[in-house]
């Protein structure tokens, strides 16, 4: 049952809403009236009602934007019962209601952008959309405008596993107020185990910013950005992450991968395919490599550098790639790539 408020809005713009639906149906023949009707009732209606209770004048614009975005999402089966992943639905139910000020200020931009971001985080293996939603709810009241809110959301997405955005996200962070930048980079309490009272002090932002810039594997922010010493030998490379998996188990690789290097970037070959691997303290992501990139990439001598401990379960080492900040290793018995932080690049801290 749709609320009276939303019913009135739909009725007043009936022709335009119907025309939009018909156009979407033309573009996406798979769009089902029943699914969309469910979306309106279950997902959009509560948001419109909440907006109406806060600011009745904003309800029409939010309803129109939600309707427009919803059409595309339902047509592509990205929300509702048949959705390919739950994260856009979760965003609409948990994220948008707490970011109501920004949703009301720029409904189409905020709803569309955040839905796309949730989709990206929900589909990149290893990304943490749950954490991102958690950070968003903290960012919403801190941001002054939809623009700064969305920028902070970009920085948070990097923090939640989209390692390929590292350089770009750091530049965006520079344009944010320190409080917002720190909040975007600080994991929610439930995820990283730091008590809320240990939220970073904004005076530490310049130091943290510098450490993030200098150390690809720096991740400690919960303790006012300071890392933790764990008594480990500082000259050894630390195994930070195993990434990648067998295609049969939902991963990318049809066979154990091999590493190559080009343009100071890591590439992974498996079977006839190849990927660019970007990794840092916050995550690791794979991106399909072009034939030109693969042609330019060269394997390195598979000699394990001093100070790198190779776990026995990966079998004989099949390839090694060494960059300034990272050592990557593959083995004959694993479909994963092992990533080690080179000493001096931030891998010494323990914070997650």
């Amino acid at each position, binding site marked *: 049952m749709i609320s009276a408020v939303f019913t009135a809005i739909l009725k007043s713009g009936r022709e335009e809403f119907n025309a939009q639906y018909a156009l979407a149906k033309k573009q996406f023949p798979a769009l089902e009236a029943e699914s969309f009707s469910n979306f309106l009732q279950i997902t959009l209606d509560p948001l419109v009602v909440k907006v109406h209770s806060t600011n009745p004048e904003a309800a029409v614009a939010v309803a129109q934007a939600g309707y427009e975005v919803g059409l595309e999402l339902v047509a592509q089966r990205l929300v509702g019962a048949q959705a390919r992943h739950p994260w856009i639905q979760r965003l609409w139910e948990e994220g948008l209601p707490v970011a109501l000020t920004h949703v009301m200020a*720029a409904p189409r931009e905020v709803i569309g952008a955040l839905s796309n*971001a949730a989709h990206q985080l929900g589909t990149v293996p290893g990304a943490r959309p749950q954490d991102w939603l958690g950070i968003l709810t903290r960012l919403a009241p801190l941001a002054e405008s939809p623009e700064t809110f*969305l920028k902070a959301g970009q920085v948070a*997405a990097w923090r939640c596993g989209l390692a390929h955005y590292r*350089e770009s996200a750091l530049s965006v962070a520079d344009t944010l107020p320190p409080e917002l930048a720190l909040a975007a980079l600080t994991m929610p309490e439930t995820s990283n185990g730091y008590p809320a009272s240990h939220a970073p002090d904004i005076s530490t932002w310049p130091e943290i910013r510098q450490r993030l810039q200098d150390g690809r594997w720096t991740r400690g922010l919960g303790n006012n950005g300071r890392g933790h010493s764990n008594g480990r030998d500082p000259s050894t490379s630390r195994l930070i992450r195993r990434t990648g998996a067998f295609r049969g188990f939902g991963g990318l690789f049809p066979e154990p991968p091999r590493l190559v290097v080009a343009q100071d970037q890591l590439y992974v070959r498996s079977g006839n395919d190849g990927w660019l691997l970007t990794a840092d303290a916050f995550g690791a992501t794979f991106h399909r490599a072009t034939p030109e990139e693969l042609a*330019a990439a060269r394997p390195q001598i598979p000699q394990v550098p001093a100070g790198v401990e190779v776990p026995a379960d990966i079998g004989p080492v099949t390839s090694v790639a060494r960059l300034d900040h990272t050592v990557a290793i593959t083995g004959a018995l694993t479909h994963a790539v092992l990533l080690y932080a080179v000493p001096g690049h931030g891998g010494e801290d323990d914070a997650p």
Partner: protein
Amino acid sequence: MALRDLFQRLSQAPTNPHTAPVSRQFDVADLYRGPVSDTAATGTGGGLPLDEKLRQAYFWIVNTAIISPHYDVEYNTEPPRSFLLGDSKSRLTLPSSQSYSSFVLLPLLTFATRRKCLFIGGPGRGKTASALLMGVLGGYPVREVRRAMLHGHPQMTIADLLGNPLPADLVNAQDIKDIRIAWRGWLDMRVKIIDEYNRIPTRTQSALLTVMGDNYAEIMDHIHECPEAAWFLTANDDQGGGTYQVIEALRDRIDVVVQALAFNPRFLSDLVTRIEERIRPEEVVPKQIIFTETEIDRLQDEIRAVALPVQVRRRLEFFTSQFEFCEVAGEQFEYKTKDTARLAGVEWATLTARDTGRDKIKDLGCQTRNGLSVRALMTIIHYAKAIAYFRGNPEVELEDLRQILPFVLFDKLVQDVDAPFFESPGNTAFRSDRVGWLRRVFDLSCAEYDRLNLDRDDPVAQLASEFRVGLDGVGESEVASRLVKIERLITDWARGNKMYGHLYDDMLKLKYLHQRYTNYLRWLKSR
């Protein structure tokens, strides 16, 4: 240089140059791009490059607004599959690259270059609706575009077209300057639409010509300057039928002519949906594809910056030179043109009967009654650059020229339907299919250009480029040698060769160069 230095010198150029792949960059702005269109990053489309925005506009119209698009602007990256169908062996081609619908593409390029497009075709084929869409792309509300659209009718007066003097001023004014004019709103639109322009009376057409040609309107000595605009006109009959004959100058101001092709009943279900859902595409144009005035200004600058390579330009020069020459029209060399005969009022049949000795099928000039104007050439160049820009290329390709040319020359190059070419088997259909004919003529011209090997062996181009370097410091003996070279070339060509259009233009160019060198030599000797 010391021997030691010689051994220490390093090459300053790459010793084995390779194109290094660029290190991949990621932009966090991409986070907000995805399954939902119109993200915060693009906002109103302002973040997109303008050529991309133009393509988005095109594909939105083709995929959403137009029900049955025809892909008649064909591009191929490899030889296309083609099939011969029916008794007349009609050729159906399946292009191997992205191809376009002229009915959408040409108006869009007109919009981007702020030029003038005429839609022709029977009633109810979407001519006016397409023009309306262009108005909406220009940032005007649908209602405003509709209200500003001029509808041609037999009683249309100049006042209906341009505006009225205020009645109170007409009574009270002591001077004509004191009479204020209530100008019509459409004059200030950046997208001007005139529906059924061939129903406007001749006198009113003349007033329209001033606005179209010179961008201002005049009533009682009062001038109203109009902004630069894209013009869209519609007509049910491009031959100047309708209620009134369209004056030639007005027709000549139109840059491209696009035909609204027939509706394919296989798309009837879409039409049914549109009726049932009461969809009017012009009312649901996405805001990302709406262009601001500044963006259109920038579009024009970017289009102008697209390069026209010499090789492509030469093909256009060669094609153009086929048509104006008419050997029997004049006695003096410069006046041997079709325009001379036209100005003198000589009957075309008389003229062609006297024109003997040439192969009238091979000579492309025999297929037309006129040549190309400078305005037509400028239009071709503008649109060729625009289509290259639309395709995302930094320079015009020969295929761009080939595709755009028929729409520009549609009613500018007048067919001689009695020419022997049209009697040849397979060519009779060109009498009615002007787009196909113009494309064929261009192909034949390019084939002849290749046969003459003009890309590699073009003595006139060599002489011209030598001249373009300038005459500063060129001595008497060098000038004399160049003059001899020119005269020798003319002598060679005069020996046994029949005159064709391209040779005629080459001769005139040689005469020009000869004259410039002669004057320079005279000046050198007088010092």
